[in-house]
C-alpha cells in the first residue's frame, strides 16, 4: 500500500469513529429534545383559536382553591382581589357584594395552603361603598401596608395586604 492509502486509512478511521459518535447522537435526538408540541385535533383548531382570543385563562378551581360559587359576581364589578405573591400568585377573585373569607380552612373563599396562615385568617367585606379588612384573630397577623390590622380598616385600591407568605392587592 502506498503512503497515500495509509493516510487515507488513518483519517478514514477517525472519520469512522466520529461517524459512530454522530450517528449515536442522531439516534438519540428524539431523547435529547424531549418533547413535541402537537395541535389537538384538526377540526377543532379554528374554533378554539377564536375562543381563545376573548377568553382569559382562569386557574382551575382545584388548583387555586378559590370557591367561585360563594362569590356573587352578578352585581356591577367594583374590582377584584389579586394575589401578588405566595403560593397562589396570579389568582384573582372578582369582588361583588359578598364578603370574602381568607384562610386555610376549606370553607374559606380563598383557601391558602400556608403554615403561617390561620384557619380563618381574615375577612374582606363591603361597607358603605368601600371595602374593609378585618383580622379574625389570626396567629401571625394580617398586615395592611406594614401595619397590623386588628379592627376593621378601610382597604382601598392599590393597598396591599400581607398574610403569611401571601400578599393581596385590591385592583379595579
Amino acid at each position, binding site marked *: *500500500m502506498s503512503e497515500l492509502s*495509509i*493516510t487515507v*486509512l*488513518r*483519517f*478514514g*478511521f*477517525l472519520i*469512522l*469513529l*466520529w*461517524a*459512530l*459518535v454522530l*450517528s*449515536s*447522537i442522531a*439516534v*438519540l435526538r*428524539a*431523547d435529547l*429534545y*424531549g*418533547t*413535541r*408540541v*402537537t*395541535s*389537538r385535533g384538526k377540526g*377543532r*383548531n379554528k374554533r*378554539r383559536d377564536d375562543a*381563545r382570543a376573548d377568553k382569559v385563562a382562569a386557574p382551575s378551581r382545584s388548583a387555586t382553591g378559590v370557591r367561585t360559587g360563594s362569590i356573587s359576581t352578578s352585581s356591577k364589578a367594583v374590582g377584584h382581589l389579586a394575589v401578588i405573591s405566595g403560593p397562589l400568585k396570579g389568582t384573582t377573585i372578582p369582588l361583588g357584594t359578598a364578603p370574602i373569607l381568607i384562610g386555610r380552612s376549606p370553607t374559606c373563599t380563598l383557601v391558602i395552603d400556608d403554615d403561617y396562615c390561620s384557619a380563618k385568617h381574615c375577612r374582606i367585606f363591603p361597607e358603605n361603598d368601600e371595602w374593609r379588612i378585618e383580622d379574625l384573630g389570626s396567629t401571625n397577623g394580617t398586615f395592611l401596608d406594614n401595619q397590623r390590622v386588628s379592627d376593621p380598616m378601610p382597604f382601598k385600591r392599590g393597598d396591599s395586604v400581607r398574610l403569611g407568605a401571601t400578599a393581596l392587592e385590591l385592583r379595579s
Partner: protein
Amino acid sequence: MSTVSEIRVRAGRRSEMALLAISWVIIVLARAQVDYNAAYLEISVIALYGLGTAVLMIAAHVVLDKVAPNADPVLLPAVFALNGVGIAEIHRIDLAEDTSFANAQMIWMALGVTAMIVVLLVLRDHRKLRRYTYTAGVVGLVLYLLPLVPGLGITVNGARIWISILGHSMQPGEFAKIALVIFFAGYLVTNRDTLALAGPKFLGMRFPRPRDMGPLLLVWAAAMLIMVYERDLGASLLFFGIFLGMLYVATQRLSWVLTGAGLFFIGGTVAALTIPHVRSRFDAWLHALDADTYASGTSEQLVRGLFGMASGGLFGTGLGNGRPDLVPYAESDFIIASLGEELGLTGLMAILTLYLIVVQRAFRAAIGVRDGFGKLLASGLGFTIAIQVFIVVGGVTRVIPLTGLTAPFLAYGGSSLLANWIVLALLLRVSDMARRPSEEAVPA
C-alpha cells in the same frame, strides 16, 4: 389548543443493528491497521477476528431483542467500539513489547459479553436487587478489603489491590463497586428523607444533622482505609465519589456534597503529607516536569505519556505508527495516552464522547425509570463510569494526581472488563424498564 407530549421513543433495535455495524467496522479496521502498520497484515487472522467479534455482537443483539427489547440502542455499540479500539491498541503494544495481553483481553471480552447476557437473562427486573441491599453492602466492603487479608492479597507496584486465587490474580475492587452501588441505591432510597429534610441551616444551605452523618462517616472511613492500607488512591476516590454522587441524586442537597468533599479533601491532604506513597504521587503531579522529580523516576511515566500525546497532535500518528510502548503500562493505566498518540486529539475526543454518550444514557435511564431504586441504581452506575473515566483521563493529562485506575472497557484488565460488562448489563436492564411504553410498564 396544543398539547406538549413526550415523543414516544422507538425501541430502536434496528438502529442498534446499524450502529453495531459501524462499530464492527471500526473494531476490525482498527485491528487491521495495527497489523498492517506495526507488523504485517494477515487476512485470515483479521477474518477470524472479525468473525469472532461479529458473533459476540450478534449474540448480544439477539439476546437484547428477546429479553430487553426496549433497552437503549446506543449503549451496546458504544461499548463494543470502546472495547474493540482498546483491544487493537493493546495488540499494538503487544507487537512492540512481545507480550500477549490482547489475546487475554479478547477472551475477557468474550467472557464479559457472556456475563452481560447471563445477567440480562437471570435478572428480569432490576428491582429484585433491592432485596439484597445489605447483603450487597457487606459483600462490597468485604471485596474491597479482601486484598488486605494476609496470604490472599498481593502487592503489585506498591498497591495492594490484587488477590491471588489458585494462581490467578484478580482485582476484587472492580466487582465491589457494583455491589456498593446496589447497596447505596437501596440504602438511600429508604433513608433519603431523613438525610434530605432535617438539619441546621448555615450559609443558606441546610446541613445534615450530626446523627445522620453516620453512613457518610462510615463510607469516608472505608475510603480512607483503602487509601492508606491498600495504597489505592483511585479506588478510594471512585468509591467515595460514587457515594457522594448518589447522595446528591437522592437528597438534592449540595450541602452533603460539600461536607463530603470537604472530608475527602482533609483526608487526602493528610494522606499526601504523611504517607510517602501518596506524597510521591502528589509530587509527580505538581512537579512533573522538574528535573529532580523526573530524574527520581516518580513522574517519568506521566511525562512520557504527555510527550506521547503531544507527538500525536491533532490527528495522531495513525494506529501502529506511534511509539506508545515507550510509556510503562501503556496497555493498562496509560492506554489513554497511547490512544492519544496514535489517534490524536480527534480520536481521543471521539472516545471521550463515546464515554459521554454511555454516561448520558445511564442518567437518561435514571430519569425515565419510575422507581426510586432504579433511578439511584442507574445514576450510580453512570457515576461509576464517569468518575472512573475522569480519574483515569485526569491522571494521565495531569489534571489530578495520577492514580492506578483502568479506563472502563479500554484498558487491559480482566476483572475490570468483566465488571464493566456487568455494569452495562444492569444499565441495559434499567433502561429497558425506563423506555418501556407506559401501558405495559407497570407489572402487577
